[in-house]
């Protein structure tokens, strides 16, 4: 292709990393060294290599995993291998914030300073790190690592949290939380990253903190967490695993979909779309090549439920996707996993290998050994740090190796999804529910919860509570019930507000403790359940800081495709900054009018949920507790 990121060449190490993924280049045209006797007379590829475009992100990951950043030489080499114009690839690389396009040390600590972590001392840790190691993003004074601020790492129950990544021939990662002292991170940067493989007892203790209910009776989605070895397929089967698939095969595809429809299960990713309708639409699609995607790009600040499900019960998701493939007539499954979830990726990869080994995935999924199975396999695609990729059509573009910009709908994914084929997209938690529905039947599932919100729900409690963690309760439990489960507000302080549903959700006040956490009740209260975030703020919290942070989050994560969102999120962040500094343009009333107008423009004219909800949490906060009211001493004389 004609436009090049000038003539930079890849290093041996970068080429090796790419070749490990793609295989060795077979001609000079593809990036091998030029052999004019061969290359001067013919070339092959074209279409065949262009169809590997979806390997662009995996190839970029391969380079970054190996050398810690993605150089222009590496981009040129990848582009040659995949026949992607480098200018186009540059647009992709720079879209995802986990990819570094400037030299970066091999060891990087990503220190979360997002909503939950900043309530639990993230700024203090960042200050310490700056003192110990120097400014964020620069090589540390001693040693080769660096540290960076990060948006929500999905480790909110362990706030303040950090993720340390060591690039190299074998990438090593470790998560930390709660981080008591910046020294832990400094040490990890120097190579002490054994956390993944710590002794089982230590691991279990940590897990009990993350899932305080672990081991309790009556859990459904969390039943295996802490009780069944997530690395063992045998243990999974002994605990009832793959009985749902057996039952699904008895029911047949139409039977499975009928149960799902009867269950009234709705999506748990935030949009609450009826799952049965989606499955049915995909099963009825005219095209026979279909995909099942598990949306594990959990990036809503304050959400960590999918991470824990994948880390602690990976086979359940594999089994549920297999059922989805069976029911919808899809032979390809893809898990689109957040780039920040290395342990989930590790466990899931282990599970896929084990399942393939027992013919529970592959050319013929054969549960009984009797033959006559169906084809279904799953691959993992790792995201690279883009909140927008949780939006399903942006997720498709990301899988296809493009910038994660949402597509216009219609056509809907059930008709034209990833690679232009009918696609079923379900959130991790949604899929986890499928196993129960198939096993018990839709009617029984529907008996749990309320009329319009069936089943149980996972809630991510974080912020100022005594026992932050993941909780499973039947729909209908109130906000007060959940706070009680989590041991109440930290230090017994008075409750000030709760952020429901994350940055795209909304704030509710202490008067809402009796609010049943169902789709219908939260909707009626002008709020939303979203992904199940319950982020708790006490009277002593700096809510102004929280609102500014939310605004900054959207400014950072807007993909830039629609003008109202691209410009609106910036203007909104600037506006909140002015309010916080008490330096309004004009007077405060004018600022509030401008805010309302921005919010309306983004809501009306953005094509995806990001822009449409970029103002809701802030608007609800301003209405509920307005932290930017002039302090009484500064009030203008009346």
């Amino acid at each position: 292709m004609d436009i090049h990121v000038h003539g930079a060449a890849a290093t041996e190490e970068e080429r090796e990393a790419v070749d490990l993924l793609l295989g060795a280049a077979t001609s000079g045209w593809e990036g091998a060294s030029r052999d004019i006797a061969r290359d001067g007379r013919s070339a092959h590829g074209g279409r065949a290599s262009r169809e590997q475009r979806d390997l662009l992100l995996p190839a970029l990951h391969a380079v970054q995993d190996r050398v810690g950043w993605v150089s222009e030489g590496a981009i040129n080499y990848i582009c040659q291998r995949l026949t992607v114009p480098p200018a186009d690839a540059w647009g992709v690389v720079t879209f995802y914030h986990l990819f570094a396009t400037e030299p970066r040390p091999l060891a990087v600590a990503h220190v979360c300073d997002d909503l939950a972590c900043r309530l639990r001392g993230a700024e203090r840790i960042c200050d310490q790190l700056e003192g110990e190691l120097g400014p964020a993003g620069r090589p540390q004074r001693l040693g080769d690592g660096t540290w960076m601020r990060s948006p929500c790492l999905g480790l909110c129950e362990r706030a303040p949290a950090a993720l340390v990544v060591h690039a190299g021939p074998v990438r090593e990662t470790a998560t930390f939380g709660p981080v008591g002292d910046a020294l832990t991170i400094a040490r990890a940067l120097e190579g002490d990253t054994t956390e993944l493989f710590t002794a089982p007892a230590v691991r279990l203790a940590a897990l009990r903190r993350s899932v305080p209910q672990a081991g309790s009776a009556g859990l459904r989605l969390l039943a295996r967490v802490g009780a069944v070895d997530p690395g063992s397929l045998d243990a999974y089967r002994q605990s009832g695993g793959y009985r749902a698939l057996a039952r699904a095969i008895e029911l047949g595809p139409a039977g499975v979909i009928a149960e799902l429809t009867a269950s009234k299960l709705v999506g748990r990713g935030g949009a609450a779309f009826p799952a049965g309708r989606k499955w049915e639409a995909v099963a009825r699609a005219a095209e026979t090549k279909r995909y099942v995607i598990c949306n594990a790009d959990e990036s809503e600040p304050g959400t960590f439920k999918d991470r824990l499900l994948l880390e602690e019960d990976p086979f359940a998701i594999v089994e549920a996707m297999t059922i989805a493939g069976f029911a919808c007539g899809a032979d390809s499954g893809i898990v689109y996993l957040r780039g920040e979830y290395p342990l989930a990726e590790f466990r899931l990869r282990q599970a896929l290998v084990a399942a393939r080994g027992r013919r529970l995935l592959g050319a013929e999924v054969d549960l009984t050994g009797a033959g006559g199975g169906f084809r279904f396999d799953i691959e993992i695609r790792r995201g690279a740090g883009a909140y927008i990729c949780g939006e399903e059509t942006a997720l498709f573009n990301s899988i296809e190796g493009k910038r994660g910009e949402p597509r216009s709908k219609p056509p809907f994914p059930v008709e034209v999804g990833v690679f232009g084929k009918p696609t079923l997209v379900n959130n991790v938690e949604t899929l986890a529910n499928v196993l129960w529905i198939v096993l018990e039947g839709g009617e029984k599932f529907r008996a749990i919860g309320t009329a319009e919100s069936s089943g149980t729900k996972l809630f991510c409690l974080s912020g100022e509570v005594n026992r932050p963690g993941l909780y499973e309760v039947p729909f209908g439990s109130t906000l007060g019930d959940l706070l009680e489960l989590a041991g109440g507000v930290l230090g017994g302080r008075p409750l000030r507000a709760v952020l429901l549903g994350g940055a795209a959700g909304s704030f509710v006040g202490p008067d809402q403790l009796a609010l049943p956490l169902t789709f219908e009740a939260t909707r009626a209260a002008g709020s939303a359940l979203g992904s199940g975030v319950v982020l708790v703020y006490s009277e002593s919290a700096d809510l102004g800081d929280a609102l500014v942070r939310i605004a900054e989050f959207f400014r950072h994560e807007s993909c830039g495709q629609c003008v109202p969102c691209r410009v609106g999120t910036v203007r909104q962040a600037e506006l909140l900054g002015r309010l916080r500094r008490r330096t309004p343009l004009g007077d405060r009333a004018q600022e509030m009018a401008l805010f309302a107008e921005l919010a309306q423009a983004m809501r009306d004219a953005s094509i995806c949920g990001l822009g449409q909800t970029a103002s809701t949490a802030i608007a609800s906060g301003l209405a509920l507790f307005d932290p930017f009211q002039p302090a009484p001493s500064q009030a203008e004389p009346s």
Partner: protein
Amino acid sequence: MFGVGGGTSSYQEVEETDCVLLWGSNARETHPIFFHHLLKGVHRGAKLIVIDPRRTTSAQWADIWAGLDIGSDIALSNAIAHEILAAGLEHREFIEHATSGFEEFRQHVATWTPERGEQETGVPAAVIREIAHMFASAPRAMICWTLGITEHHNAVDNVLALINLALLCGHVGRYGSGLNPLRGQNNVQGGGDMGAIPDRLTGFQHVENAPLRAAFERVWGVSLPPKKGLHLSGMFDAMEHGEMKALYVIGENPMRSEADQVRTRRLLEGLDCLVVQDISLTATAEVADVVFPAAAGWCESEGTVTSSERRVQRVRMAIPPPAGARDDLDILFDLARRLGHDWGRPDSETIWNEVRSLSPVHAGMSYARLEKEDGLQWPCYDERHPGELFLHSRLWERPVLEPRAPFHVLHDEPPVDLLDADFPFRLTTGRRLAEYNTGVQTGSYASPTRRGETLDLSPEDAARLEVRNGDLVRVTSRRGSLETPIHIDPALRPGLTFMTFHFPEEVATNLLTIDATDPVSGTAEFKAAAIRIEPLRRSAAAESARNAVPVRRA
């Protein structure tokens, strides 16, 4: 094809075919709009085979690229045909019922094994086999070509070689299969259709056919010369021999576009009278006795144009021409009146209706229909005829409507300008995306990809000559010599070099080219000159690049 000068297929078909054999064409840069249609086909799943000495940016989209030696097209076609027959992939029914001369052809290509093909073309035998199988086994396939086929001394034979392949596989006369020369300008097709070729009247009616000619004589009220005229190369020969003393040039810049420029200048300057009618003062206009400033056809006049897919479309005047410039028709009418023939001032529709009355293939195309139906594709015989998406469907009627389509026995002939120790490099020519021909239409626009004229050569030759990008060299052919900077292009292999004609004022590439012409079409062999290269001096840029650290991205 087969008697009419037009591509057989529609753009829509290239979007829906199964295989495109793009031969001697860098359509991505030279026919970018057509290439968009082609890419739609490629994205839908069509295979793309590109035959070109250079691995062009078009070739980068190909499933197979074959880098043949310049001028070995017939050898490659014969070898592909051999493999198609050896593998039994030919379309027997079509050959039997719709073609003639197959037996002689079969015997001729029997000796053209892929191994012999490799020897003559440089393309590996295995690749020749792959191409044969991909093309022949595609349910529908089309062959598209441009000047890489026709700017040779044996241009017509080259085209016939491609037709042989299509006949062999039955890849013509059906939807999605066809033979398509890509036209260089928006209205090259229309010019030919209207009779601006030496042997045809409007609608491809042969001038030497007395009854056809009589129809025109009746309508025009004059008698017409019964013999065909001269093609461009023939005109220059006639000037050379003193038989042609006056020349009226409309919208053409031979001073820059003709091969062997030294001779072109001498001949044009030696004319008694040279008249040039153009939208700008071209190099040819500068030596003319009379210049008629003309309106720009695409926006300052009324009429029609015809695209490569034979689609006649209306053109409307959007703005009046600048002061002093006049519509081509106005100029012609006034000139006629001064010469004693008052043609009146018919508008473009009246003239078009005369075309319809004389050319059966245009008869059904009223202005009203052209407007309503977004253009029509000829042939369109009457007002109810919808026009034809593709030509030669008759070849699939049984029994076939005569005449049958003939195979041709073709012999490989190397380019006229032979390589030897004094002139060891092959120079070929072409165009680049941002430029058009001699730059008359494109020179006044800025382009971020414009880098001026260069001699492009392979990294291997650059290393051997010890030159770097931007270094100045002297390029000499048997006809002329010039200085130009070089540009290293990995798309070239050792021994092969490339230039364009885009910047004739800076680098007059046609000083080097040869005017050996095809005896039938009169096209010169722009694609194959023999040259030598002598390094002159290092450019300042190349010199500083030698010492510089890589430049950061802007």
